[in-house]
Structure formats: structure tokens, C-alpha cells
């Protein structure tokens, strides 16, 4: 049973993640008054990439890509998706956040091992902006974990049951906005897309990938977006008891993100850090002070 559920979760993640990327392309196109590719374009792209030949720069180049995809698949299993709760009983928020880091480390290692300085610069930028956006995110979550006395993602989803007004989006509004902003960074959306920046550093970490490498990393990107928004939906939008309803919430949040990011220009890399530490961090600390002050027993 667990095996079937795990398979269902992984397939959901991959299929729905790729679907989200397709939606993104379509939405951006419509904002720019283009027609855009069909929504299933991303599936075609991944299938094509896996069928093409590719080049490798060595053992770590291969292993890092496997670590990246494997780490995200592992993370996915700890996140509750509606009623599909494979390992979410032990889905500790801190564990999930750090498991995601394994995946990022794998990708960073692999990219830098290509020997292309554009990749190194891209990874440097990714790590730098991570320093910016992760801090406010974790500070808000610190307040939430303190207030609810749990670090379980499922536990936080369960306390919000019974009506929309119980959602943390309304109970913890400042924190919800801060985490929403941080999610742009985690999923690499504008204005936080300095690591990719095609016009400046030739797609940064992606510069040397081809064929199945690029295919694996597209899958990873789709999964990261799905995991990331799933956490947001569980923690701030009350999770969902219904599988389809959950996916709908994920789609809604993602569409909002895409619409916002498609009209914002890119930050310069240190602007990401100064911005994140000026406003989101400030509000995150205020939010956690409020939560701690309310929650002290």
C-alpha cells in the first residue's frame, strides 16, 4: 500500500510539476500578448531530452545530477498531498528544508564540475541569493513552530481545519506574505532569477547540460516547484482533504506567482540580499515576535 502511495505521489509530482511549467509558459505568453506553446509542451521537451545524446564532464557531473533528482524525489515523499500522506507522519519541516539542500548541493557540484566559469558564477549567485531569501522564510517558520509547538507540516495543516478564516493566511498574514516572497527565490522566479540570467551568464549552472542531464534537471525543477508550493499550501492555506482540491490550490498559488513574476525585472545579485534582509526579514522578525509574544505560556 505504501509503495503504491509513494508511486502515486512521485507520479503526481512529476506530472503535475511539468504541467505547472507548461501553465507558466502559457501564462507568460498571454501576459506578453503571444499565443504561447501548448500546455503539454514541457512533456514533449522532457521526452525529447531523454532521447537525445549528451555530453558528460566526469563522474561528479553525473552523480550530482542523480543526487539532485534523488534528493527532490525523497523530499517529495515527506510532504502531505491532500489525503496522500506517505511519510508525512515524520514530515518534519526542518528535515524537509535540509533534504532540499542535498538536491541543491548535488546540482551545484555537478554544474561547477563542468569547468565552465559561467556555471560557477551561477552557483555563486544561487547560494548568495539563498542567503537572502531563506532567512526570512525560516524566521517566519520559527514563529509558527513556536506557536503551534510542532514542526510537522501535516500537524500545521491539521490545526487550520474548520473554515477559511482558520487558515494561517489570515491568522499569520505578514508571515504568509513573507514566505510567499521567499518562494519566488526558491523556485527561481523573477525578480530572483539571477542564477539563471540567460542574457548575462548563459543560463548559469545549466550552461553545460544537454540531453538526459537537462531532462533530469527539468524534472527536478518541476518537483522543487511542486514541493515548495505544497509546503505553502499545507502551512498557510489549510492543506486540503481532497487530492484534486489540493492540486487546485497549488495551481492557484503558482499562477499568482507566475503572473507577478512575469511583469517584474530581475534584481542584481546583491540587491536580492539587501532587499531580503531589509523588508522580508524585518517583517519576518516582527511576525515571529508577535507569534512568540502571543504564544508564551
Amino acid at each position, binding site marked *: 500500500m505504501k509503495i503504491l502511495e509513494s508511486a502515486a505521489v*512521485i507520479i503526481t509530482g512529476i506530472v503535475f510539476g511539468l504541467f505547472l511549467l507548461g501553465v507558466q509558459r502559457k501564462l507568460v505568453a498571454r501576459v506578453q500578448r503571444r499565443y504561447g506553446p501548448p500546455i503539454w509542451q514541457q512533456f514533449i521537451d522532457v521526452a525529447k531530452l*531523454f532521447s537525445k*545524446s*549528451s*555530453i*558528460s*564532464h*566526469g563522474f*561528479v557531473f*553525473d552523480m550530482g545530477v*542523480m*543526487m539532485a*533528482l*534523488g534528493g527532490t524525489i*525523497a*523530499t517529495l*515523499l*515527506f510532504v502531505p498531498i491532500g489525503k496522500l500522506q506517505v*511519510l508525512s507522519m*515524520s514530515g518534519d519541516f*526542518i*528535515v524537509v528544508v*535540509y*533534504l532540499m*539542500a*542535498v538536491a541543491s*548541493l548535488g546540482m*551545484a557540484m555537478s554544474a*561547477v*564540475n563542468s*569547468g*565552465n*566559469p559561467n556555471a*560557477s*558564477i551561477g*552557483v*555563486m549567485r544561487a*547560494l*548568495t541569493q*539563498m*542567503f537572502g531569501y531563506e*532567512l526570512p522564510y*525560516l524566521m517566519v517558520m*520559527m*514563529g509558527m*513552530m*513556536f506557536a503551534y*509547538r510542532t*514542526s510537522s507540516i501535516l*500537524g500545521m495543516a491539521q490545526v487550520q481545519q474548520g473554515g477559511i478564516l482558520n487558515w494561517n493566511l489570515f491568522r499569520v498574514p505578514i508571515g504568509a506574505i513573507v514566505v510567499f516572497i521567499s518562494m519566488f527565490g526558491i523556485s527561481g522566479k523573477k525578480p530572483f532569477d539571477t542564477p539563471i540570467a540567460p542574457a548575462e551568464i*548563459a543560463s548559469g549552472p545549466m*550552461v553545460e547540460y544537454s*540531453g*538526459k542531464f537537462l531532462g*533530469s534537471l527539468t524534472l527536478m525543477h518541476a518537483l522543487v516547484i511542486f514541493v515548495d508550493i505544497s509546503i505553502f499550501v499545507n502551512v498557510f492555506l489549510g492543506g486540503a482533504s481532497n487530492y484534486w482540491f489540493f492540486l487546485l490550490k497549488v495551481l492557484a498559488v503558482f499562477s499568482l506567482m507566475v503572473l507577478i513574476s512575469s511583469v517584474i525585472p530581475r534584481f542584481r*545579485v*546583491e540587491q536580492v*540580499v539587501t532587499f531580503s534582509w531589509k523588508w522580508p526579514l524585518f517583517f519576518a*522578525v516582527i511576525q515571529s515576535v508577535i507569534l512568540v509574544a502571543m504564544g*508564551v505560556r
Partner: protein
Amino acid sequence: MCPFGTISSFSFSLLIISPLIYLLARFDRRWASAFLALASGLGLYKLATMYGEWGLPSQSFEIIPNVTISFTNSPIQWYFAFIGLGIMLTIFLFEISWLSKSRTPSAHIFFEAVILASLPGFFMAGDLMTLYIFFELMSWAAFFIVSQASEKSEKAARTFIAMNTTGAMALLYVLFLLYTRFSTLNIEELRTLLPSAGAGFNLIIFALFVFSGLIKAGSFPLHTWLRKTHGNAPDSFSAVLSGYLIKYGSFVVAVTTVIFPSLLLFSNAPHFMGLPLPNYILAVLGGVSIIVGTLMAIKQQDAKMLIAYSSVSHAGYIVMALAMVSSYSVAGGLLHVLVHALAAAGMFLSMAAVKYRTGTTNMSELGGLVDRMPVTFATYLISIISTAGIPPMVGFVSKWLIYQSTITGGFIFLSFAAFFGSIGSFLYVFRPLATVFFGQRPKRLENVREVPFIMQLPMIIISALTVIFGVLPSIALKPIAEAERYYGIKPVSFSFSEIRGALGSWNSVLVFFVFMLGFIMAAVIFYLARKSVRVGLLENYTAGEIPREIINSPELYHYAHNFYRPVERLYEHHPSLEDFYETALGENLKKFGVFLKTLFYNHRLDWYLYVSILTILFLWWLL
């Protein structure tokens, strides 16, 4: 045989035969190093047999009334000593081969024998006098080792000894205070006597202890010796310094907060979020240490100095956790001692291996060593995953435990500092990985080989332990829980595979296997697709044109210099504590010294005349 006899005899016999070790090293340095490895192995075995026999009356001999040299065995002390001997064992194995690069191998090995002798003596000390004596012995021996590496390291060694002696003097002053008050220095007796003393007295004791502890631990605001000393010490000794000697300071902090019941002592002091103010201030200092260490590590150009600042940051974690004295924080702090001992030893040994083959640790002069030195690379990789606190390595477990404590306590600044150090560590640990092991390989490093097997062995041991403790942290938590029980703190609750925290539980075995499962699935997807073509490092995307300079000198095509320039720019003009100590304190002290010197070595005798006349006049007026 009495178990405590073994510890004292281990220390003293090693001290007595250390000149013989020097002679042995003159004869053949490899045998001397192997002998010391064997000795530390023997010490480890003795310690292992002593597990569980806590607090038996110790063997002692009096030096002045009520002041003895005595040894005792309690869980915390056992834990620190065990890790220390383990680290020393790996270092001695490493040095069997490494010593050929040392400028003065015989002296190096002689002083390391002294350090090995001081180690169980310090950690198993039954009273503060023993603690102080071995503390001084260690500082003295370390001073000579540090000064041996190069011309530059003499200055580093002077900074080291100046700060450590200041710390030792603070410790000695505490000893005087305690002895005049209680006429005993026995740690167990002081534990029961201290609560009867006033809060003011206890605060002074606490402050002085913390002062000497922070110096030795390399924690803010007294961390300034770490960069120079770790950066300029002999390469393998940097691993001892960071992996183990700064834990002497962590131990002093543990004595102050955990062994002496600081929560009880300050129960009448003002509290912040349920923590007595002295403890909270200490924890905040630990937090600042994390932030300062992280920011400074990011901007270092030399790999060894970078790791030195990462040690500042990790010392901060340990100090912060031990200062909070809760069930999870003490467990996390003590586990972090193990984590950092392994990680720092792993990182410094891999950098020592790199320097052994290439002659430098300046990151912008290296590159692309992953194909040439795979074991060194793997050691460094595993150590940094642990340093950054990423599962499935042991570094995650200790950070997870520390978070349990900062979050449930509602400490906003401390949580912030802990997160800051954790995310910042991704940045600084990645830099040597990207610049030393990855990227383009300079032409002159084309023929670099992996280090000999005897140097790989300790690195493999350290990596294996990092993974094993990460998957099964319960092995390491067993003595820690024992220690907590012994000192009346609620022991952390765990089973074979699961640790139960205040906010939830996490199953290390499950996480490891799920990660492996994900990895296997990814590998299956990867290998089912078409096989890729292997190409060289220089076959890169260069926007359509391959400049000839790149082919002739690949290092031009290696992004390594000023790696984190955009971040550094944000705090370029930061005030430097190191400069402050050097100019404001150091220069003024020097002036004072020069002034004193003129008094004694002045050939103008009229000075003495003036001073004598003034003194006589002064006395005449006074009487």
C-alpha cells in the same frame, strides 16, 4: 587495576617518555608517529573500558593542603576525552607520512606527545588545579608546534600564547577565589558548595570562567587568534587545533554551565524568556560568534583561514547550546562537539593533503583536483555536508537538536543566529569545493597524484564515522543522555533510529533510506537513457569562440578569485575586532612595555635619582 590509575599513568608515563619519543623521532619519525597512534589507541581502549564507572573516588596526591592532582570520571568528561583521543589517533596516522613535509619533525612529534598526555589529564580532571595545569601544558606545547611552520607562524604563535595565557590567568584567578572561599578545588564538592555562595560571587566566577572558555573555544569576542593560528600552523596540526584543542574551551564552558548548575546558581537573577540573564548573555555571545564567523569565513581567500572562521562559527553553536542548559540544547551542544571535531579534522586533513601535493592552500591557485585526488575530495565533501548540517550526516542531528531548543524557548535572536550560520555555511563550505576540487585545472597541477594510503586511511575513517553517526545518531547520543542524567538534566529521548524532539520526531534511518531510494530511482532514470559522451574540461560552451589563452593557461578560465564578491561588497567596511585588539590594545600595551623597559634598562642613572627622591618625598609626606 584501578581505572583511574590508568588515566593518570597514561598521562604521566607519556610525559615522562616524551623525550624518548623525541629521540625515536630523530631516529625515524614514522616510528614515533606510529607509536603515538598506538598510544592513543591504547588510551581509547582504556577509556572504553571505563564507560559506566562514573564518579568513583579518584587517585590523587596533594600538592598543598586540600589542593590535589586528581582524576575522576563523569559522562561529560569521558565523552570529551574519548573524542579527543579518537581525533589524535587519526592525526597521528596521518602524520606517519605527512611529517616528511614538516620543517622540524622531531620537535613536532615531541610536543604532540605532550599534548596527547595533557588531553586525558585535562578532560578527566577531578579538580580545577589539575584542569589548570594540563590547560597550561597544552597551551605551551601548542605554542611551540604552531611557531614551527614558517616565519609567518611565529607571529601567529605569539598571538596564540598571549591570548591563551590571558585565559589561563583568568582561570587561575578563579582558582584563587574559589580556594579562599571554600578551601577546596574539587569539582564535585564545588558543585554542591557553589549554590550556598551569593549570586554576586557566582557571577564573578561565571564571568571569569566564561572569559577563559571563550578564548580557548575561539568564540566571539575573543576569537581573533583563530584565523592567524589555524591558518599558519603546520597543516596537520591545524586539524588538531580546530578539531580538538578549541574543544578545551567548549569543555570549560560546559563546566561553567552544565557541571556547575548555572540555572540553579542564577535562579534569583533576572530572567529572559525563562533563561537567567547571565546564561542568556552567554548564549547571545555564542549567536554573535556564529554570525561573525560565518561572514568572515565567506570572504577568506585561503582555504585554511576559511575553515578557521568556520570553527569560530561552530564554537558559537556549542557555546550557545551549552549556555541554554535545556535537555535538547545540551544534547545538541555536546553532539556538536563531536560533529565539529570530525568535520574540522576532515576538512583540515583534506586541505593538508592538498597542500602536501600542491604546496598551497590559496584557493585561486588551485582547481580541478577532483580527478586527481578522489579520496581527498570525498573526505572534504562529506565533512562539508556535515558542517552545513545537511542530512544524512551527523551535522544535521546536532543542529536539529539545537533548533528544538531555540525554537521552543522562543529565542528569536538565537534562532536567527542558528539559521544564519546554517545557511551561511552553505556559502563558505562550497567555495573550496568549487575552487580547489572543481573548475579548470592549472597546467602545473596536471601530474598531481593522490596522497599515500596511510594518509588516506585517517580521512576514510573520519568520513565513515561522519556517515555512521549521521545514520545512527543514537550511538553518539547514548553517552550524551547518560551525561544529562548524571547532571540532573532531563535526558533527550531517542530510540535506535528515532530522536524525539519537543516539536516532533525525526527518524534518521528512514530519512537515509528514503534518500537512497530517491537516489536509486534517479540513477535508474539516468542510466536507462542514452549513454553520454565523456569530454574534457576545456570543451566548454564559450559563446562560439575558443580564445587561445584559455587553451594555453586554463587557470584563466577558472572562477575562483573573489568568489563571493557580491556578498563581500555588502560588508566591506566592517569594523574589525582583530585590528582593534592589535591597535587599541596591542599598541598601547607595547607603549606601556617600552615605558617599563626605559625604567629598567635606562643608562641615564639620574632617572633612578629622580624616582628615588620623589618616592622619599612621597613617603615623607605620607608618614
